[in-house]
């Protein structure tokens, strides 16, 4: 043990232990839903609140990093832990979103096929605890242990319904790409230790790598953490794994786990490598922007609501990485303040995305429970059956569409502000290229609004597309509280962006030596300078509410509030059925038309004389056939070639052993 026990880090470890105990408690009565769901998960939410509160304490100004060495792990490499501002920011994110998700999960999990609730509870809390340890780890060994625990526990959670073959397949794909990424990360740490064989992060931080090796480490980190985050072309697992998992798990994976990858990338590129040549930033920026656009375009054509959200996560991860890339770019030219602005935008977007994406995934969980449908083509009109979920999901929808005065707008505003500073870069062709990035960003954000209108409109608005939907109803109070907590977070961070800026400023200060102002006051933010740009979420919110209120009162007072309920007008067409509304495919049609080259489409059109016309369209990711299937075939062919040595006779295997021994002896002697 270290000598003086540092309070906040110890408190966090105690909370991690509390999570693990709650998980183990689930095994006492694994099939008793009332105990596991209604008691253990809400307790887990309380622990999450404690985690968030502790992290907020660690982000206060004047807090120095706390370290701790635990007498566990390898003989010569005990577990090192460290709580600095960067890890505290991500701990805060896990705590804040985790509280809402755990509360919701308390009402969500019920007995059924698949994994028993008690076992799910264990996996769930191990998953949460491992995410926290990933962020707190201060040596490569503990980091990799926590990282793999995170991957495995989430794999088991994804395959909770393991009797369904598609879900097993999705889980396998996830595990595969998670391990490709983990190998890259392991190699990255191997390069970072730079011949010192010091696997503590402290050793890597001080190590002076040669520039070429630094670039190798950066690229390995980008691949490894990019695979976890879902950067194109390593994104294919997201749209498979997220729909397969139970909704609270999708929320954890999309809202929180993707952010641990962002944390890892930040740790490696900003903390260990301390920035690098400008092309690192350019690469991350370009990759991020392409991922963002790719995700948005694909989200627009999805017909499964959870797949749509998964592609939207890809888009948001792209936005986060473009912010990180921009920060690296500024940093390469010594523009620390602008780097801090871009980094703040990325960090705040992490926090925002954790809140609104969790909210939306949980809302789809409620819809799924109420209707049993994930297919957008069989939903509709739920705002009248599930008013609570619809109202709270509307907050998430508006937030993720990047609309003021909610939180999604704040991070996009900051990112655009950062793009406006690119003329300060002293390189002419970057000056010309980077504004095009702002254009791509604007297109992505506008497409996100399109996607979210489709998501919300097809699920909650219109007429029910199936007769069974009339039995749908709102979920219980635990679920509502969970959703409400996340929605309140979206509104609060949108109204008072200074709070998030203060937290991100505590991170950028030590990392970059510069932080954007969180003020001038609680009401207003002006990150660069007051005359340059300022924004106040709360004033915009108050302004809209005031005008709406005054208009409402005036219209009612001066005129009247009489309403006559009739049939819909629809230009007088009396034959209207729910099937005449736009389907999810129909709503995606303009995007399919405009962004045609992105997709691989198979269409089957009916001929005019078909008596039972059927229209079928299948939209696919081009990368799947262009990249993954050839690799898969190659691996299979290689395996077949290797299988020749596998004769199936014991004598042959003994011969192999003997030959190897001889070979080794020759080699050694």
């Amino acid at each position: 043990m270290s000598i003086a026990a540092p309070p906040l880090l110890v408190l966090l470890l105690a909370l991690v232990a509390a999570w693990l105990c709650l998980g183990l408690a689930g095994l006492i009565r694994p099939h008793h839903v009332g105990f596991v769901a209604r008691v253990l998960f809400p307790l887990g939410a309380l622990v999450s609140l404690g985690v968030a509160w502790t992290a907020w304490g660690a982000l206060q100004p004047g807090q120095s990093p706390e370290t701790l060495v635990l007498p566990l792990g390898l003989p010569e490499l005990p577990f090192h832990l460290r709580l600095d501002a960067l890890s505290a920011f991500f701990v805060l994110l896990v705590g804040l979103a985790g509280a809402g998700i755990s509360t919701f999960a308390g009402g969500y999990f019920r007995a059924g096929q698949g994994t028993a609730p008690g076992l799910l509870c264990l996996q769930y809390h191990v998953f949460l605890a491992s995410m926290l340890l990933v962020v707190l780890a201060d040596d490569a060994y503990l980091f990799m242990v926590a990282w793999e625990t995170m991957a495995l526990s989430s794999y088991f959670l994804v395959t909770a319904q393991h009797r369904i073959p598609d879900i097993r397949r999705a889980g396998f794909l996830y595990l595969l790409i998670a391990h490709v990424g983990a190998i890259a990360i392991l190699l990255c740490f191997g390069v970072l230790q730079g011949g010192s064989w010091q696997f503590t992060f402290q050793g890597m931080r001080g190590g002076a790598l040669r520039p070429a090796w630094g670039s190798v480490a950066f690229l390995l980190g980008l691949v490894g953490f990019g695979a976890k985050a879902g950067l194109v072309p390593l994104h294919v697992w997201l749209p498979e794994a997220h729909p397969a998992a139970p909704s609270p798990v999708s929320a954890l994976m999309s809202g929180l786990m993707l952010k641990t990858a962002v944390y890892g990338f930040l740790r490696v590129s900003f903390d260990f490598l301390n920035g690098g040549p400008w092309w690192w930033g350019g690469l991350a920026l370009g990759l991020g922007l392409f991922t963002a656009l790719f995700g948005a375009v694909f989200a627009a054509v999805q017909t499964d609501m959870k797949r749509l959200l998964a592609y939207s996560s890809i888009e948001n991860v792209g936005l986060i990485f473009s912010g990180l890339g921009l920060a690296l770019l500024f940093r390469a030219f010594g523009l620390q303040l602008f780097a801090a602005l871009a980094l703040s935008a990325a960090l705040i977007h992490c926090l925002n995305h954790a809140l609104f994406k969790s909210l939306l995934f949980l809302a789809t969980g409620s819809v799924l429970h109420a209707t049993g449908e994930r297919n957008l083509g069989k939903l509709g009109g739920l705002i009248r059956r599930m008013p609570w979920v619809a109202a709270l999901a509307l907050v998430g929808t508006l937030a993720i569409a990047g609309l003021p005065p909610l939180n999604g707008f704040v991070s996009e505003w900051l990112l655009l502000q950062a793009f406006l500073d690119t003329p300060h870069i002293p390189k002419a062709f970057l000056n010309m290229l980077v504004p095009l990035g702002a254009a791509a960003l604007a297109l992505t954000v506008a497409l996100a609004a399109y996607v979210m209108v489709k998501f919300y409109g097809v699920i909650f608005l219109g007429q029910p597309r199936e007769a069974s939907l009339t039995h749908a109803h709102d979920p219980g109070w635990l679920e509502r509280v969970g959703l409400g907590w996340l929605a309140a977070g979206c509104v609060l961070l949108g109204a008072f962006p200074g709070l998030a800026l203060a937290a991100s400023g505590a991170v950028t200060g030590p990392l970059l030596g510069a932080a954007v102002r969180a003020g001038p006051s609680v009401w207003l933010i002006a990150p660069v300078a007051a005359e340059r740009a300022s924004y106040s979420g709360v004033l915009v919110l108050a302004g809209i509410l005031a005008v709406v209120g005054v208009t409402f009162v005036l219209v009612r007072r001066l005129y009247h509030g009489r309403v006559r309920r009739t049939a819909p007008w629809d230009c007088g067409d009396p034959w209207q059925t729910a099937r005449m509304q736009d389907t999810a495919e129909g709503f995606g049609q303009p995007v399919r038309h405009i962004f045609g080259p992105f997709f691989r489409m198979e269409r089957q059109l009916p001929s005019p004389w078909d008596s039972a016309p059927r229209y079928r369209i299948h939209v696919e990711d081009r990368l799947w056939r262009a990249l993954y299937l050839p690799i898969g075939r190659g691996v299979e062919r290689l395996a077949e070639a290797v299988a020749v040595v596998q004769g199936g006779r014991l004598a042959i295997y003994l011969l192999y052993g003997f030959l190897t021994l001889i070979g080794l002896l020759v080699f050694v002697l």
Partner: protein
Amino acid sequence: MSRLALARQLGELLLAVSLAPFLVGWVAQCRAWLQNRTAPPLIQPWRMLRKLFLKDAALAGHASALFRLAPYVLFGTMVLAAAIIPSVATDLPFARAADAIALVGLFATARVFIALAAMDIGTAFGTMGARREMMIGFLAEPALLMVLFNAFLLSGSTALPSVVEHLAAPPFVIYPSLAFAGVAFLMVLLAENARIPIDNPATHLELTMIHEAMVLEYSARHLALVEWASGLKLFNYACLGFALFVPWGMAARGAGTTGLLLAVPALVGKLALAGAGLAVVETLSAKLRIFRAPEFLAMAFLLAVLGLLVHLRLGA
């Protein structure tokens, strides 16, 4: 914030809210004259609003609260947008709360709400209109943002009052980048305000509608607010155009009452010219097929980006 500044801000808001229907009426009048029709009086939109407010609202049986709320939100965001855009004076206290990027965000908020409301009833025309409107939106918004980026880079600020003050400052310069941006802005204005060649505000053909298809289910006071809000949107776009491309004639910071009183006729004059110009454009061009709209807006986007490159290359 002093009481005087607050009064000025409110006065400017009231001016915007009351002038917007006149602007719509003026454009309709000019169009009628150009097309050899008898023109409706200038006050026609006001009469329309009064008539709509007096009627009983006919709502579809299953319309949700969102459907009834959306017109108010639409109106609210447009009024708020009018509070940010300098039209008469550049000294706007509220403009510190939201800059031009937030203005684009406010326009997007309004668009999302009206599109959601259009999907609420679940009729074929409503959802079709919503889909088309969102398509135009995601094509036009980047173009608008790039137009604004031109002005931001010239003035080094994203706050509209600062932009106007910088562009209107005495040494009279013609910025080539703004010339490109100006054309792009005009194209965005036409698309965003449901004007020919993208949409026809006077159409009666449901299958070609965009904006009108979305509001088909609205009646009485809700329709009045929607129409008023779209009038305000046109007004806001016009004022944004003045702020970026003809920023002269506005009362400068610290100008007295006389300055303000002189600025009002200047604004009305500019609006009259712009409205007539809009009518000419609408009369001379034909409506495009819906899938030509991406080409039209991509052109606007490219022009704006070209302006950006011109600025970065030439520094002007």
